[in-house]
C-alpha cells in the first residue's frame, strides 16, 4: 500500500525531470519549432543591451522566436566560456562580449560575420571599433559592435578657475594638449587650492594607454610592453605620483566620497563615467565640465555581439544582431540606456544632444562624439587582461609604498615574462 504510493511519487518526480530536460533540448533542436518559428537565443548581461529594444526585436522578426537571457554580470564570462567549450546545444545563438580581444585567438569558435554579408554594413560603424573584432589576418569578423566608450577630460570648472586655468572646454583643451601640460596644470591646482588633479595613477596609466595605437602586444601576439607606449604611460603615472598630484583613490565608496567632497579637480574617463559621477557626487552638480582630453582621444570599454559556431541558425541570428545594432536602434539605446553609439551617422541627430544640468548645461555629446571619431586603431592581444592586471597591481604598489622606479618596472616585467611563459 505504502509502497505503491511511494512508487507513484517516484514516477511523478521522474516525469518532472524528463519534462525539465526536454524543454531545454527543444529550443536547441534543429529546424523549426512546432509553431513554425526559428528559436534564436541571446545571452547578455544587465545594461549591456536595451531591454526595450530586445522586446521590439520580437515584433520586428515575427518568424524568429528571440529568447533573450539576461545573465549575472559577475559570472557572465565564465558561463559563456563554459558554453563555448562544451559547444553544441548549451551555447546560445547570439552572445554578448565585453570586449572582443580574448575571443580573437578563438575566432574559429565563432561564425565569420563577413561570410554573412557584414562587409555591406561596415561603413555604418567606426573603423577602429569594427577592427577590434577583426582577426589579425583581416579575414574574419567575430562580432558586431554594440556601444563604445570614448574618453574625455572631466574637470571642475570652479577649481580650475581658482587655479587660474581656463574654464571654457575649448580653451581647456587648447591649453592642456599633452600629458605634460596636464601635469603642469595639476601643480598649479595643488599650489592654489590644495586639491589633487588626479584620482589615481592607475587611471592615468589606463587612460594613457586608451589613447595609444599599440599597447602590450603586436599583431603577431609578441609582447611589446617592455617599452613603447607602456613605458611612456608608466613614466607619466610615476611622475604624477612623485609630484604628489594623485589622491590615490580606489573606485567605490572612497572615490564617491572624495568626488562629492570636491577633493579631485579632474580625471579622464569614458562617456559612461558621466552616470557614475552623477551618482557619486550629487553635491557637485553644475560644477563639472567636459573637454577633449589631454594627450588625445581614447576609448575605454564597449561591447560586442557575436554568433557562436555551434548556432544552428546563424543567418537568423545575424539578421537579429545587424538589426539590433543598426544606427537607428543604437540611437534609441543611447537615449534609454546611455549606450554610446558605435555608428557615427547618428551623432548629429538632435536626439543625441541635450543640455546637461550636472555639467553646467554643457552639451557633452558634442565632445564625446568628436572624440569617438578620433580614436586610434589598436590591437589588444589575447592576454591583454592578464598583463594589464599585473601592471595595474604594481601601480597600486607604487602609489602606496616607497618603491624604486627602476626596480618596480623591472619587477613587473619579470612577472609578465613569467606569466606569459606558462
Amino acid at each position, binding site marked *: 500500500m505504502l509502497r505503491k504510493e511511494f512508487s507513484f511519487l517516484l514516477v511523478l518526480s521522474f516525469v518532472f525531470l524528463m519534462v525539465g530536460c526536454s524543454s531545454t533540448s527543444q529550443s536547441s533542436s534543429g529546424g523549426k519549432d512546432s509553431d513554425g518559428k526559428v528559436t534564436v537565443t541571446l545571452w547578455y548581461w544587465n545594461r549591456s543591451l536595451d531591454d526595450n529594444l530586445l522586446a521590439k526585436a520580437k515584433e520586428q522578426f515575427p518568424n524568429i522566436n528571440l529568447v533573450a537571457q539576461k545573465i549575472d554580470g559577475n559570472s557572465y564570462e*565564465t558561463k559563456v*566560456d*563554459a558554453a563555448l567549450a562544451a559547444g553544441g546545444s548549451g551555447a546560445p545563438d547570439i552572445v554578448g562580449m565585453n570586449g572582443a580581444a580574448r*575571443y580573437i585567438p578563438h575566432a574559429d569558435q565563432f561564425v565569420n560575420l563577413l561570410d554573412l554579408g557584414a562587409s555591406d554594413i561596415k561603413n555604418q560603424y567606426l573603423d577602429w571599433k569594427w577592427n577590434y573584432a577583426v582577426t589579425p589576418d583581416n579575414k574574419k569578423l567575430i562580432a558586431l559592435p554594440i556601444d563604445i566608450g570614448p574618453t574625455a577630460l572631466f574637470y571642475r570648472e570652479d577649481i580650475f578657475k581658482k587655479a587660474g586655468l581656463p574654464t571654457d572646454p575649448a580653451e581647456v583643451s587648447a591649453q592642456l594638449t599633452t600629458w605634460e601640460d596636464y601635469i603642469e596644470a595639476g601643480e598649479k591646482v595643488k599650489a592654489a587650492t590644495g586639491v589633487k588633479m588626479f584620482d589615481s595613477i592607475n587611471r592615468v596609466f589606463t587612460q594613457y594607454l586608451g589613447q595609444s595605437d599599440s599597447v602590450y602586444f603586436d599583431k603577431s601576439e609578441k609582447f611589446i610592453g617592455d617599452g613603447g607606449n607602456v613605458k611612456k604611460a608608466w613614466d607619466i603615472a610615476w611622475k604624477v605620483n612623485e609630484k604628489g598630484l594623485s589622491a590615490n583613490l580606489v573606485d567605490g*565608496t572612497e572615490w564617491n566620497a572624495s568626488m562629492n567632497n570636491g577633493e579631485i579637480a579632474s580625471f579622464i574617463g569614458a562617456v559612461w563615467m558621466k552616470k557614475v559621477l552623477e551618482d557619486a557626487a550629487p553635491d557637485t552638480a553644475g560644477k563639472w565640465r567636459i573637454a577633449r582630453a589631454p594627450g588625445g582621444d581614447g576609448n575605454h570599454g564597449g561591447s560586442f555581439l557575436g554568433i557562436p559556431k555551434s548556432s544552428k541558425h546563424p543567418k537568423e541570428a545575424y539578421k537579429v544582431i545587424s538589426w539590433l545594432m543598426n544606427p537607428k536602434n543604437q540611437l534609441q539605446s543611447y537615449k534609454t540606456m546611455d549606450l554610446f553609439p558605435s555608428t557615427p551617422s547618428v551623432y548629429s541627430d538632435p536626439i543625441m544632444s541635450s543640455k546637461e544640468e550636472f555639467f553646467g548645461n554643457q552639451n557633452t555629446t558634442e565632445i564625446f562624439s568628436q572624440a569617438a571619431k578620433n580614436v586610434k586603431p589598436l590591437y589588444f592581444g589575447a592576454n591583454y587582461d592578464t598583463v594589464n592586471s599585473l601592471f595595474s597591481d604594481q601601480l*597600486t604598489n607604487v602609489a602606496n609604498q616607497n618603491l624604486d622606479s627602476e626596480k618596480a618596472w623591472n619587477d613587473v616585467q619579470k612577472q609578465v615574462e613569467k606569466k606569459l611563459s606558462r
Partner: protein
Amino acid sequence: MNATNTQEVTNNVQYMKPVGKGSLWRKVYKNRALYLFISPFYILFLIFGLFPIFFSLYLSFHKWSGLGKMEFVGLKQFTYLLTDTTFWQSVGNTFAIWFLSTIPMLFGALVIAFLLNTPLLKFKGFYRTAFFVTNVTSIVAVTIIFKSIFGNHFGLLNYVFTMIGLNPVEWLNSGILIKVVIASMVIWRWTGYNAIIYLAGLQSIPNTLYEAAKIDGANLVQMFFHITIPLLRPIILFTVLMTTIGSMQLFTEPQVLLGNSGGVGGAGVTITMYMYKQAFVDNQYGYASAVSWVLFGIIALFSLLNWKIVQKTGAK
C-alpha cells in the same frame, strides 16, 4: 533444475559472511526501492561533486584557457607553482590571517560561553540568539560595512580617531593592517557561532564540580581556567580544526574588501582568492586546478596534525 537451486543456496550460505561482490549487488537489488529513494542525492553528487573533483585533477595536468583545446603539460603546473612567489605569498597571508583571527576569536567565544552558562544570567535565550545572529548575516553585506568602517580617508573609525585627536590610519594601505581588518571580520562573524558550540560543551560539565570549587573558595577566574578549559579540551580541538579549515578557505571577505588584486602589494590575497583569480580572471584553469589540489594538501596536512593532537590528548 533442483540441482542448480541447491547449488545456489549453498553458494549463498558460503558467501554470506564475507560480503562478496555478487551478494552485495543482490542486496542492493533486493532493497532497490530504498536505493532509488536516496539516489537523487548520489546522482547530483556524482555530477556536481565527484566529477568536478576528478576533472580538476585531470585539469591540473593540462594547460587550458577555458576556450580552445587543452594541452597536456604533465607536472609543469605544479613545478611552476613551486616557484610562484605570489602563490607562496598567498599561503603566508592565509596563515597570518588564520593566526590573527583564531586565537582572539576562540578565546572570546569561550569567555562568552562561560558567561552565558552562569546560572545567574537573565535573558539567556536572547543573548544566545544575539551572539549567533552575526553568523547568519550575509558576508558580502558585512564586508561592505567593514569597508566603510575601515575606509582610508572617509572611514568611520578614522572619523572617530580624528574626533578624539588621534591621527587617521590608512587601514587598507598597509600589509599588516589589511590582515587585521580581514581577521576582524572573521572574528566578528564566527565568535558567536563558536560560543554556542562551547556552550553546548559547558552544559555537559556537571554543576557539582563548580559547586565543589565554590566551597573550596575558588573564584570565577580560577574555575574558568581549572575546570572549564580542561574539561572542554575535545570541543576546543574540534573548533580549532573547523576554524582552521574555514580560514584556509577564506575568500569572500578579502575579495569583496579588496577586489581581485588583493590590495596593496597583494597583502590580502588568500590561497582561495589566488586560485579564483587564476581561473576566472586570468583564465588559467589548469593552473587554478593545481593550486586547488595543493590547497587540499595543505588542509589535509593540517587536519592530520590536529587529529594526532586529539589522539594524544585522548590517550592521556
